[in-house]
């Protein structure tokens, strides 16, 4: 021992000691037995040190950054509550977007925490393990801060009281839930391709940005602040997504077809889930940010196009059916909103027919399709509702075996005809909504025959009873408050009272 200690390590050295320096090769157990999950998917890795971490973040620095962000966020959340921030939103209809987010998206953050915790254990390479462990903690932070940001609304508005319970049971929430169940039950490399790449990298701008700018446009400062607080985490997650793809592609060319198939699959599953965001943008925000069509053109066609041009040097092609998804951008929001309008008696948020100026906005944004296919129907529904005959669909819908969305999407070249696909497996029929979903089923039928399809589960008697009200109680709905049309809802009544008081004052 020289007795002289170097007082500080350089950043590079410090990063190396606190990440790579923490790993070791096992000696009295075979590495393949210690890490049994990282090679069965067929991905070949020659050199785990080929993993690059562009952020070079170590755990101690991570805690410090995160705690500073938390302090700021919670100061804003407190002040939002103390100053009755909910009174500053544009209209109570906006809160329905939060209901969808809290029940549909926030529980996914928790699922992501579980997924990244799992794969963070399973990679034998230290670089990806550390990155996954940090992301697991981020995701846990996101679900907590989202619940805290939105909890203020739960004091006044319906439908926000049982998000985790609803996420596991309610028919439309099986769409995001099954998406993540599918990802988490895949191997670790497919999980990262699905969540880190397809979801966080390719499609995140179509999920996160619309919700957060929607919040900003509609006066919801609590949610905007949460969005800012999560932004640097999301940047790190996107980088992980791109890194894992490049890592797999650079390690061995036999990885290329596997990665391509995962990209095709998870792009399609992602676009299906984004139908919920599409209808949020076009129908649920009282003050619109941009149309779904515009968002798709900017964030997928342009930004995604540049990304796939960049990946072409590895032999990667743009996702299969991207052309169909682009055609869908013209229709999907209207078709998705119509599904929820049909079944809003069984949903934990309200639906409504847009007001006249809002219909005009949709006519302007969708000049080739809205007036032809969708406006007459909405005007009819409005007339019926005003005459006291609010239309609900009384029969449970047929669901897609893969995405689990009611089969309400049409052939995009024939927008008045529903798109049907079917596969046979072990003597049974399995119906899917699109070529994209059918391909996914056909590649791994043994996986998707296990799908917990809410409609079929209700008919099997596994959801609280035979009648719709029994099922809704099993969902933990407050009947007559959480569900049904917005006009005449307790939410609307309360909001109108507040507005009347404001006028008097």
């Amino acid at each position, binding site marked *: 021992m020289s007795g002289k200690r170097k007082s500080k390590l350089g950043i590079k050295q410090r990063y190396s000691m606190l990440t790579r320096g923490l790993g070791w090769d096992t000696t009295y157990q075979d590495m393949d037995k210690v890490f049994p999950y990282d090679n069965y998917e067929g991905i070949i890795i020659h050199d785990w040190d080929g993993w690059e971490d562009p952020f070079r973040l170590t755990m101690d620095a991570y805690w410090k950054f995160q705690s500073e962000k938390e302090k700021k966020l919670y100061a804003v959340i407190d002040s939002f509550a103390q100053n009755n921030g909910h009174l500053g939103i544009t209209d109570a209809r906006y809160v329905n977007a939060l209901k969808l987010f809290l029940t549909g998206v926030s529980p996914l953050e928790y699922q992501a925490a579980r997924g990244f915790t799992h794969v963070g254990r399973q990679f034998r390479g230290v670089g990806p393990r550390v990155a996954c462990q940090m992301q697991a903690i981020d995701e846990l932070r996101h679900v907590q801060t989202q619940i805290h940001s939105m909890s203020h609304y739960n004091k006044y508005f319906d439908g926000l009281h049982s998000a985790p319970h609803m996420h596991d049971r309610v028919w439309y929430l099986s769409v995001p839930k099954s998406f993540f169940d599918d990802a988490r039950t895949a191997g670790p490399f497919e999980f990262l391709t699905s969540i880190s790449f397809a979801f966080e990298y390719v499609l995140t701008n179509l999920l996160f940005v619309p919700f957060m700018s929607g919040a900003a446009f509609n006066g919801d400062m609590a949610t905007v602040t949460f969005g800012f607080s999560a932004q640097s985490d999301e940047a790190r997650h996107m980088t992980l997504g791109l890194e894992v793809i490049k890592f797999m592609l650079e390690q061995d060319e036999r990885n290329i077809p596997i990665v391509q198939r995962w990209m095709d699959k998870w792009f399609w599953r992602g676009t299906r889930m984004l139908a919920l965001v599409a209808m949020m943008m076009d129908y649920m925000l009282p003050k619109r940010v941009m149309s779904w069509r515009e968002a798709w053109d900017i964030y997928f066609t342009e930004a995604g196009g540049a990304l796939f041009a960049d990946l072409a040097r590895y032999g990667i092609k743009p996702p299969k059916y991207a052309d169909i998804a682009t055609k869908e951008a013209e229709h999907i929001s209207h078709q998705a909103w119509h599904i929820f309008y049909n079944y809003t008696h069984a949903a934990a948020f309200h639906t409504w027919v847009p007001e006249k100026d809002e219909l005009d906005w949709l006519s302007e944004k969708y000049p080739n399709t809205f007036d032809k296919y969708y406006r007459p129907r909405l005007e009819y529904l409005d007339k019926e509702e005003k005459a006291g005959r609010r239309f609900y669909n009384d029969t*449970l819908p*047929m669901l897609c075996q893969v995405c689990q969305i009611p089969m309400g999407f049409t052939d995009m070249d024939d927008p*008045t005809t*529903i798109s049907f696909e079917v596969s046979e497996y072990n003597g049974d029929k*399995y*119906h899917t909504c699109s070529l994209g979903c059918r391909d996914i089923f056909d590649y*791994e039928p043994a996986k998707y025959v296990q799908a917990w399809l809410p409609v079929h589960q209700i008919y099997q008697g596994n959801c609280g009873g035979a009648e719709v009200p029994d099922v809704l109680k099993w969902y933990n709905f407050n009947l007559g408050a959480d569900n049904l049309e917005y006009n005449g809802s307790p939410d609307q009544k309360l909001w109108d009272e507040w507005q009347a008081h404001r006028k008097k004052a």
Partner: protein
Amino acid sequence: MSVASIGKYEFEPLDKVENFHGNQLTYFNWEQHLLFCAPVCLPLPPEMPFAALVQEVLPGVYNKHPDFQKINWDEVTWTLDQADFTPDMGKSLADNGLGHKSLLRFWTPGLDGIKGSHS
């Protein structure tokens, strides 16, 4: 393609016909009438006569639509599992060839929905 997995990968399908208490699932779609956003799903006894489907089941599903009363059932065209199909009203669903998770689509000529929008 079999599922890549760390062990044997065989699981029971969740929607086998025996899970539906003597019924089988039947899917219906009234074509070009998208007021009803999607095809519907109903558990029905395979021995139910096809006539009962038309006279008792379908009105419960679709009679809120102003076109429904105008349907001339003699002119309706059908497909069963995507093949042309002419139902025998006196025979049961099973004897008409409807199995578990069969898809029945029907077209009603001359009726094109709310203001001709196929809704």
